[in-house]
């Protein structure tokens, strides 16, 4: 999985033995500094509710590793909760996370929500299209324009390939790509 947004570029590699847990590594490069975060990740599906027309999930997301900036290196950790609910037509999600790096940012908090709608209902194997709106809240940011960031997104997926792209309220591009092996 690769993700590029206004703040950083992230590459993830995950292994999921079942739908309930996922182990992985990630490399994150911050756009406006020479900082790199390298992390081990563990995500756990805490609760899933399946119905005939919908699925709802609650996840615990953790990561820990080292952050590098210049010649310095710091312990880096991340603890988050994520929830989503979706049908074949509608999608909503919310996630919140605490992030801590020794001496770098002394901890930060952010939250993010998404709503989405599929303009047409596609079957298994077809090209699926979603129109989404993402709102991020970064209370530690000094500028108002960075505290609340709104991003309209298009999500496309077919088979084992998923991509998302959009332009946020500050004019920055977001591009995500996920490939299932």
């Amino acid at each position, binding site marked *: 999985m690769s993700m590029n947004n206004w703040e950083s570029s992230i590459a993830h590699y995950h292994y*999921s033995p*079942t*739908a*309930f847990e996922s182990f992985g590594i990630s490399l994150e490069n911050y756009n406006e500094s020479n900082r790199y975060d390298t992390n081990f990740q563990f995500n756990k*599906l805490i609760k*899933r509710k*399946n*119905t*005939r*027309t*919908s*699925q709802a999930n609650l996840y615990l997301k953790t990561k820990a590793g080292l952050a590098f900036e210049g010649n310095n290196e710091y312990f880096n950790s991340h603890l988050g909760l994520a929830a989503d609910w*979706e*049908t*074949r037509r509608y999608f909503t999600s919310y996630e919140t996370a605490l992030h801590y790096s020794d001496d770098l940012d002394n901890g930060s908090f952010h939250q993010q929500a998404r709503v989405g709608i599929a303009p047409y*209902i*596609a*079957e*298994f*194997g*077809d090209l*699926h299209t979603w129109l989404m709106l993402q709102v991020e809240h970064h209370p530690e940011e000094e500028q108002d324009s960075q505290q609340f960031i709104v991003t309209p997104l298009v999500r496309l*997926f*077919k*088979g*084992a390939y*998923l991509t998302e792209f959009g332009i946020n309220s500050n004019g920055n591009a977001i591009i995500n790509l*996920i490939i*299932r092996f």
Partner: protein
Amino acid sequence: MIKKTLLLSLCAILINLSFAAEKELGETVLVNVKGLVCDFCAVGLKKTFGKKTPEVHSIDVSLKEQTITLFFVKNETLTDKKIAKLITDNGYTLVSIIRNYDPQKN
């Protein structure tokens, strides 16, 4: 001329081998589930019933009907218990397993 004949013979052998490798179809099983709403998540089912279960010839997934159709290799099958485990490991709720399902009649 000899080269052409050899080439044609080689093609014929390869075609025969590919037909020989094709396994015959056996039982069809219809699995009704809950939670099958995301195509990208359901890709995992194809991997599960491809890599982990050589007994399964192919599968068909219907998001509309919330079903997974398992086409088994002739004289091969999986127990209900095994199918149930693979379905739940993929994160879906099993509703029912219908044996000897005939897609033409339904």
